């Protein structure tokens, strides 16, 4: 699909088993995609900036249990300069669940003055959970600002103990920390009703 010059396109996908989006952006258009998975699914988001001054935002959150699996693929191409792209992808993996992120970011030679950020943060709640992260950055322009970061870790034991020391039981403390980790993705949703609803669900989802 095409997003015309100066248009704004925003979509939120919650618990879709398959998301497959191909978007071409024309000059000055703005695209924001938010994908939330609380069960298995595959997401492929392909976005190409074909005009100057486009804005692209991709936010993805998966929170998985048992043997659920989510693969999120993003392909962002800056074919013309002066645009921005921002990606934040988070996975919270419990039990035997598996997460995979493929983040493909390309800035072509003439796409000068591009600003692109890609961040992937993952939280493993079980020793059996597995996360694979495959960033693929191809930057051919020399006057750009591009950042990339990926990290996978466990809940902060010192924060858990700190909360327990204030009388908060361990499960509730875990719930607060996991909720805090997920919140910044959910907070990007513009629709207030949906946002509040999802923020409330994460309190219930965490065991």
């Amino acid at each position: 699909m095409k997003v015309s010059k100066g248009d704004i396109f925003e979509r939120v996908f919650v618990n879709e088993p398959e998301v497959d989006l191909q978007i071409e952006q024309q000059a000055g258009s703005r695209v924001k995609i938010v994908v939330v998975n609380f069960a298995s699914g595959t997401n492929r988001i392909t976005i190409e900036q074909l005009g100057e001054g486009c804005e692209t935002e991709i936010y993805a959150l998966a929170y998985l249990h048992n043997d659920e699996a989510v693969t999120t693929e993003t392909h962002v191409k800056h074919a013309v300069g002066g645009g921005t792209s921002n990606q934040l992808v988070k996975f919270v993996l419990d039990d035997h669940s598996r997460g995979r992120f493929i983040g493909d970011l390309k800035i072509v030679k003439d796409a000068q003055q591009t600003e692109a950020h890609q961040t992937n943060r993952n939280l493993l709640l079980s020793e059996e959970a597995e996360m694979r992260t495959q960033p693929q950055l191809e930057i051919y322009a020399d006057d750009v600002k591009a950042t990339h970061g990926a990290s996978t870790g466990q809940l902060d034991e010192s924060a858990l103990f700190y909360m327990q020391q204030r009388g908060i039981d361990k499960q509730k403390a875990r719930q607060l920390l996991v909720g805090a980790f997920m919140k910044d993705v959910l907070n990007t949703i513009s629709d207030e009703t949906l946002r509040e609803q999802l923020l409330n669900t994460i309190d219930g989802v965490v065991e």
Partner: protein
Amino acid sequence: MKELLRIENLHASIGGKEILKGVNLVINEGEVHAIMGPNGAGKSTLSAVLTGNPAYEVTAGEVWLKGENLLEMEPEVRARAGVFLSFQYPVEIPGVSMTNFMRTALNEKRAYEGKEPLSAKEFLGLMREKKKLLELPDKLNNRSVNEGFSGGEKKKNEIFQMAMLEPCLAILDETDSGLDIDALRIVAEGVNRLKTPQNASIVITHYQRLLDYIVPDFVHVLADGKIVKTGDKTLALELEEKGYEGLQG
């Protein structure tokens, strides 16, 4: 005088290394005990063991809080029973607001005591009142726990939480470290105003300075995992003058 805490022959280790080698201490209601000692003597280990930090292993001994076996309680149960630790290094918890954190903690304690949870209005009123005690700003409520707080703010925030939770036993672990003189005065005044005939505190410190503000009834010297000397507040002055080596010699 009513006994609050009894520590008998406490041994504890971390990573197989024995740090506490037989600590004995009795604390009664209304008392302030200072624990001083050189680095590595086991001061912070004692506070970690009393609060149930899972990194430490108790290898021998017993601890009783108001006649109950403290070592058998989970860390959160110890907290609800009234044991509070002002951390030497308060932990930052991004994404968890002070309000949410404090309200959860306070209501868990109230539930333990068989009390109803506070309403949002009552809770916020209490926050406001206790923040004044520590001269903390109003904007604190929406900030994440300790995130981006200065060293002084973190220590004030510890005492603020103590004011909210009203523990029967407060352990202040090096609360003076990293504080300038104004922050030290505010923190110490906060602690002093929270003192009642029913609660007690253990003040762990390296220096005499804090004890000018929080005056102890007893001063204990912890060295190599044991309490080697006990005296009144003049012992702290003596230590300041002669050092720990002077004392042992």
